[in-house]
């Protein structure tokens, strides 16, 4: 087990290393001079030169790559071109809203999607099933900002139950914080819940056809313990896999949702940094998001053992 964990952690290094190289190359692939692109249309020659020096673009490419990877290994993500602050401290300032938002979204999606998926599979072919599957297709066909606008229009502008935008920090109370994030979380959750409901249904359908489920029903167990105890537990592996893979879509959605609702989190930081061509910040954030994705999926792999004792790590 420990050996496996160490091996898996080591195996994430090449993937993240590849992402780091890729992020590095992104800047080099820029058509024309990257320093000119970053400096923008109205920059003076001196400004362009300053950026070139700060990013080390005047040195040979291989040397740049080696020093970039070396600094990364020490946890140094460089400095923002605009605010001159270290990228790590910019991230630290903005991480709270995003963390609360994503956790809220994941909890909301699971609480909503799992029962729906189980029910749809249990009543396969019925109107419940059709309604749930209809909701699922609708969920990942509707762009995040369309859902966001609709919710703002109805629940914030119309009914005035929730604020239209902004974020109340955790320090000012959990209730106010969650209230300010309710609409954004529902917006984000729709896509994620649709994905989960669909895979839950598919996975449950497969398990419900197994002999041991029939046996459980035959020995007179009530439907609920059969569904949850026998079936759902065995259907869990594909479900948690999708929870992990869906993190990428979720993190992408965060960028859009935080822009729609004006939440000062990492997503907003990303969108702003990209618009300003603040490249060190963009690189740092892409790396951070990729690391989160890789780590969450590592946790997902480890969780397989909980659900299926046949899987030995």
């Amino acid at each position, binding site marked *: 087990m420990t050996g496996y964990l160490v091996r898996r952690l080591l195996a994430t290094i*090449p*993937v*993240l290393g*590849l*992402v780091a190289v*890729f992020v590095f190359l*992104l*800047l080099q*692939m*820029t*058509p024309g001079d*990257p320093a000119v*692109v970053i400096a923008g249309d109205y920059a003076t020659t001196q400004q362009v030169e300053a950026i070139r020096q700060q990013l080390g673009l005047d040195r040979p490419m291989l040397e740049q790559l080696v020093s970039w990877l070396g600094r990364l290994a020490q946890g140094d993500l460089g400095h923002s071109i605009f605010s001159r602050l270290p990228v790590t401290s910019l991230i630290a300032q903005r991480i709270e809203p995003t963390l609360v938002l994503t956790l809220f979204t994941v909890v909301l999606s699971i609480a909503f999607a799992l029962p729906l998926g189980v029910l749809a599979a249990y009543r*396969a*072919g019925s109107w419940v099933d059709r309604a749930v599957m209809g909701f699922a*297709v*609708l969920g*990942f*066909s*509707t*762009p*995040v*900002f*369309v859902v966001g*606008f*609709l919710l*703002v*229009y109805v629940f914030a*502008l119309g009914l005035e139950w929730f604020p239209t935008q902004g974020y109340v920090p955790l320090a000012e109370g959990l209730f106010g914080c969650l209230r300010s994030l309710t609409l954004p979380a529902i917006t984000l959750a729709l896509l994620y819940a649709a994905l989960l409901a669909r895979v839950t249904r598919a996975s449950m*359908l*497969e398990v419900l*056809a197994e002999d041991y489920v029939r046996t459980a029903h035959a020995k007179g167990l009530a439907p609920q313990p059969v569904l949850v105890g026998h079936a759902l537990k065995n259907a869990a592996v594909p479900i948690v896999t999708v929870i992990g893979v869906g993190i*990428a*879509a979720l*993190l*992408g*959605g965060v*960028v*859009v949702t935080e*822009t*729609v609702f004006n939440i000062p989190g990492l997503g907003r930081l*990303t*969108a702003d940094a*990209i*618009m300003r*061509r603040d490249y060190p910040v*963009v690189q740092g*954030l*892409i790396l951070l*998001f*990729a690391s989160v*994705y*890789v780590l969450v999926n590592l946790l997902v792999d480890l969780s397989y053992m909980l659900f299926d004792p046949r899987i030995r790590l």
Partner: protein
Amino acid sequence: MMDHSAAAMAPSPVWRRMATGLQFLRRHPVILFGLVVLLASVAVALAAPYLLPDPKAINPIYRLRPPGEAFWFGTDHLGRSILSRSLHGTRISLAVGIMVAVAVTLAGVTIGLLSGFLRRFDSLMMRVMDGIMAIPGVLLAIALMSLFGSSLQNVVIAISIPEIPRMARLVRSAVLSIREQPYIDAAITNGTRLPRLLFCHVLPNTMAPVLVQATYVFASAMILEAVLSFLGAGTPPEVASWGNMMAEGRQYLQRAPWMAAFPGVMLAFLVLTVNVVGDAMRDVLDPRLAGKLK
């Protein structure tokens, strides 16, 4: 049976093929409905410039008019017709969707086919694909756009890159199972060279899942294009794309909700249609799953 013999009597193979096609559509109304909607959208996209007023025509006297007789969908903050702009937006969405689907399919199939047969290439390529997949697609696309600059061509490239790995993995996994089939051994024994083997024996057998995946890529490309435009990193702001219109509508959500509503609903409806067609095709092409759903 009747249809069968009628088809057999049809005058030429082309007619026979069309008859089978029609029969197929009659049996799968969802696909028929989806195709009708898609064809209608294509017709609207092609006809929009000839039938509707200029989507860029500014008319300050008529600004922020609600939907009514003169302007069916209302007007925006510059007095431009939302109807004209929304329908012109169909052009951008469809064009991006189709181009991305084609580009991703070509790239994904090429990488997948080669990965399935060449060990060295495989181990390298799959690591690269893992790396790309670890970056959220939206993020990668906006990062690429910020470097490339906004144009339709760059939007297509920026959206295609994050979509390629999934297609490549899908084709690769199909190829790996096809490779074990006896007919492949037979072809190799007969001295078939690799290019012919790949294109004539392997490729046709991967087409079913590829077609379904291409539909999903089509749908998600339209969403991603709108997201990019909405964030200001997509098509140039003066172009009437649905994402641009929604970004403008955001400032007027309270005073003029129709500005965001019409492009939003049209986008959601078109994406929904494509996804539903994709689902229906998957059910048809994957009898294992269709049997289970029965």
